[in-house]
């Protein structure tokens, strides 16, 4: 993105890298009908975990419109979002962005503990007391092993969707091979 001026650089993140085991967590997971405490480790692998700015922000809209339009729900992975927004806001987000029927679900983490555990926090200038995840994507295989990790270094910066899609496809294929063994 060339804006003709420097965008804000974020501090270097300290996040789980490829081959690491991602931190497990349990948070309310919201679908188009209800929310329920769910452990990340209870989801069917591979999991595509997408941390995003709060629902209503333009990066959240861009990211999820893109994942929807690219058909990430048809890749064979479990696709879940995570933001500091409440379950009520996630429900609105699913409706407003035409995500019903995609199977995309959203973790609600208002206290931002997951982003802290993953080392991907972003304290928002001008919004005192509000800290949220920076955009970050993780593809997790069995046992939450990180197969792909990307974390924003600038504010704003959006995921590289081609890389993410390739990583998800690779993880799905690796899982299929493992199942066949």
């Amino acid at each position, binding site marked *: 993105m060339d804006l003709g001026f420097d965008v804000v650089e974020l501090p270097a993140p300290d996040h789980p890298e490829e081959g690491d085991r991602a931190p497990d967590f*349990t948070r309310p997971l919201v679908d188009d009908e*209800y929310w*329920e*405490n769910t*452990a990340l480790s*209870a989801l069917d692998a591979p999991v595509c975990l997408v941390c995003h700015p709060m629902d209503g922000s333009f990066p959240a809209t861009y990211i999820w419109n893109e994942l929807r339009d690219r058909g990430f729900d048809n890749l064979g992975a479990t696709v879940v979002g995570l933001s500091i927004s409440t*379950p*009520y806001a996630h429900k609105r987000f699913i409706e407003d962005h035409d995500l019903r029927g995609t199977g995309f679900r959203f973790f609600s983490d208002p206290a931002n503990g997951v982003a802290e555990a993953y080392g991907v926090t972003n304290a928002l200038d001008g919004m005192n007391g509000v800290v949220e995840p920076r955009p970050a994507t993780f593809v997790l295989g069995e046992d939450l092993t990180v197969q792909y990790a990307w974390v924003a270094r600038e504010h704003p910066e959006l995921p590289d969707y081609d890389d993410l899609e390739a990583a998800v496809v690779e993880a799905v294929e690796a899982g299929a091979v493992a199942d066949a063994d």
Partner: protein
Amino acid sequence: MLRSAYTGLAPIRGMSEPAITLYRLQACPFCERVVRTLEEYNLSYRSRFVEPLHSKRDAVKRESGARTVPVIVDERTGVTMSESANIVTYLENTYGEEGRLAPEAAAAGGS
């Protein structure tokens, strides 16, 4: 884990699937009444929260035929039930001290 349903631990999906699902609304006193009873009998349950607007509660209607909460679905007995007073009575008759599936009776009789 024969008696995992009675450990009273917070239910985590994929670990010990609780037999009881409670559809509830945040801050709904009728729902909290059912929660108190579940805890009194040390029953493991999963909570599914729905929204205040009745029109947003299709999942509840599919289970019980109505859009009111609380609703419990008890896979152990095959019972699905609305109305907190009815639910409390059901839990008492099923899992209370004299209930037919009281913890001691259930443990003695297997899963």
